[in-house]
């Protein structure tokens, strides 16, 4: 399959250092990065997080919601997380608009499954006693209103024009591509991308029933891997036109993005389709495969995902890939948010000159993948590739360059 020849960005799109992340291993990006380097992995029983959660393998759940005592009600989990992210990015947005009062900012919320809580709570009520009068208006609203843009804006104390989009587990990277295209086309000066997914009963039970959930904890690319660890997480990224951020605030430059739906299978990835997005993103960035210094694969730990990525690496990079890793042994699979964590990790890797290792993996199955194992590994600052694979064959790739001071 030939890669799509995409028009080059006029200037790479700047990614701001101002970001945030909330996951099982930390409530800030700095905490998450430190935990990744330390090989920390915190997986929890669903029932310990949300009462009545179906029995099943451990999940990568957010243990502490910033500013909250205890766990929020299931129905409010997604909306609250969206609002918290808005609050955490408020300073960054305010600061940007103070520096550039005429600048225009838009908001893109990326999610794989939206807010599953209200529907689950209504099902719980119906299943318990069927007294639908006990269901409050906010719960009913949760099944007919898309609230995520509103919640992020409430946290920001602004009314940014925005939209919520979904591209399965590739949602973050598709949103990154969408945001970069918006800026490059001059539709706005900056985009706040919020990638968010919270625990979903349908996803965790469904993944378990098809044998895609790990019983022992996610171990990407390991010979003994037995699936992924489904979870939740949220990331905020701020992308803007080159030149609008102070040099020291630029964390990375988005030079190439690609989206492609191979539509080959409902749940299984296709190596030809994934290779195509990688090649297109590199082509847009005017890079050769040999230019890539590090790769953050989707790396879910399912047999099919990891096998596919090994095949993709052979197609694109030949017998030996550049240094590469997966963050899911530590973060679990944060679904639509997972690509966002990897974009932040790629920027951090460039600055720290370090790639985190694949947590939990000791006996890798694929010789052609030059995986970082056992402990973090030094990496030369240079182009980083991030990939994401979604159900239904929706795949995406993003190429990130170091800021100019590191090039």
């Amino acid at each position: 399959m030939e890669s799509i020849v995409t028009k080059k960005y006029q200037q790479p799109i700047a990614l701001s250092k101002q970001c945030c992340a909330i996951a099982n291993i930390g409530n800030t990006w700095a905490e998450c990065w430190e935990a990744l380097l330390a090989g920390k992995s915190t997986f929890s029983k669903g029932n310990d997080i949300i009462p009545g959660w179906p029995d099943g393998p451990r999940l990568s759940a957010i243990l502490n919601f910033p500013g909250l005592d205890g766990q929020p009600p299931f129905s409010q989990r997604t909306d609250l997380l969206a609002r918290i992210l808005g609050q955490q990015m408020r300073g960054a947005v305010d600061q940007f608009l103070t520096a550039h009062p005429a600048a225009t900012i838009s908001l893109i919320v990326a999610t794989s499954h939206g807010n599953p809580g209200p529907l689950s709570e209504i099902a719980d009520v119906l299943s318990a006693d069927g007294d639908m009068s006990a269901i409050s208006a906010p719960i009913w609203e949760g099944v007919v209103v898309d609230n995520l843009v509103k919640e992020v804006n409430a946290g920001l104390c602004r009314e940014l024009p925005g939209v919520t989009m979904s591209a399965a587990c590739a949602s973050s990277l598709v949103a990154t591509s969408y945001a970069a295209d918006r800026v490059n086309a001059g539709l706005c000066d900056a985009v706040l991308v919020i990638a968010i997914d919270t625990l979903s009963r349908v996803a965790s039970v469904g993944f378990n029933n098809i044998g895609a959930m790990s019983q022992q904890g996610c171990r990407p690319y390991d010979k003994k891997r037995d699936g992924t660890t489904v979870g939740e997480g949220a990331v905020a990224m701020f992308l803007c036109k080159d030149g609008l951020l102070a040099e020291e605030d630029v964390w990375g430059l988005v030079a190439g993005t690609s989206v492609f739906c191979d539509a080959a299978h409902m749940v299984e990835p296709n190596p030809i389709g994934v290779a195509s997005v990688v090649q297109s993103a590199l082509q847009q960035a005017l890079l050769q495969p040999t230019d890539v210094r590090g790769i953050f694969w989707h790396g879910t730990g399912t047999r099919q995902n990891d096998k596919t990525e090994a095949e993709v690496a052979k197609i694109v990079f030949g017998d030996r890939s550049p240094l590469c890793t997966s963050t899911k042994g530590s973060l679990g699979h944060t679904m639509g948010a997972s690509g966002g964590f990897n974009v932040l990790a790629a920027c951090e890797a460039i600055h720290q000159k370090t790639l985190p290792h694949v947590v939990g993996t000791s006996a890798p199955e694929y010789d052609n993948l030059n995986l970082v194992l056992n402990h973090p590994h030094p990496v030369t600052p240079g182009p980083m590739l991030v990939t994401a694979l979604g159900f239904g064959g929706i795949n995406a790739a993003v190429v990130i360059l170091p800021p100019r001071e590191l090039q």
Partner: protein
Amino acid sequence: MNITTLKNGPYVHAIGWTCKQDHSACVATRSSWARLTNPFDFDGVGGYRLKDETPVACPTDIPLPVMRSSGVARARSAAKGTVFAALLGKQLLGTVSGRENYHGNRVGVAVASGSAITSIAWEFETIGLRKGWDKTDTLLLPSSIPSAITTQTSAVFGTHAAAIAFQDGIFGICAAIEYAHLSFVHQRSDYFLIIGAEEVCQIQCSALLALGDQRPWIDGAAGLVLSSTPKSTGDWKLVLCGSVAEGAVQVLPEEWEDAAALEVDIESSATLFSAPLVPYALHHLFVNATDKAVLSCRLPGRGEYVLGFKQNTSC
């Protein structure tokens, strides 16, 4: 607030929708779309109503042969909205698929729906709670996420350039149109299928009733084919595109003061059943406009989304 003027906006090549009676798709290109019978009345000041006031069945029921004819894999486990999107999308793409430069790799799909996953997730959850989670139907999993409606229809059409789902109802489909524009200007695709699709599901209708919302229930799909280049003189080109916050005043360029205008106001912040309104509204607008047309969509608490089209004078 000024609405952004696009440099190389996309062209509306075809409009269509599924028919309420038999779920067949009615589709037309510009030269013949005046002959399409629009099932909606728009009063021009925000209101809209279905001309046929026969109550819509709840839940949506599609005969098995129709489901199979949609081409959707495992159609019985898919959302009804996906079946509608596939039935319509095939006909819409049929207006361009015979063209010399058409290639599935260069065609994208974007769908906005507020209902496509609800009935799937509801069935999964209620069976899990009543009979046990190990009794749930694993075939429902791929259809339980919002993007399934786009990836599953892309599989039917053999289109690959993008498969993205938008939430936010009427705003989502406007954003999908803008996404197509971005895809074209970055040379990621040549054609884009934009669809709003809904099915009627009991739990969501209960929610609307509980909230006192009396909007028309829509089961079916309505959509557009956009192209990166004009296919005939007179094709409508997207020139203005943008949203303004609640309370802010939208300012159109001076030369747009005489444009034909249509407003669509959604009754409450519920986004359900609002995505398909845009193709119906654009059809209404284009049939009655001369050379410029502006559609303004308002959603309480979210502001206004404005789309401005100009008729192409050369090809």
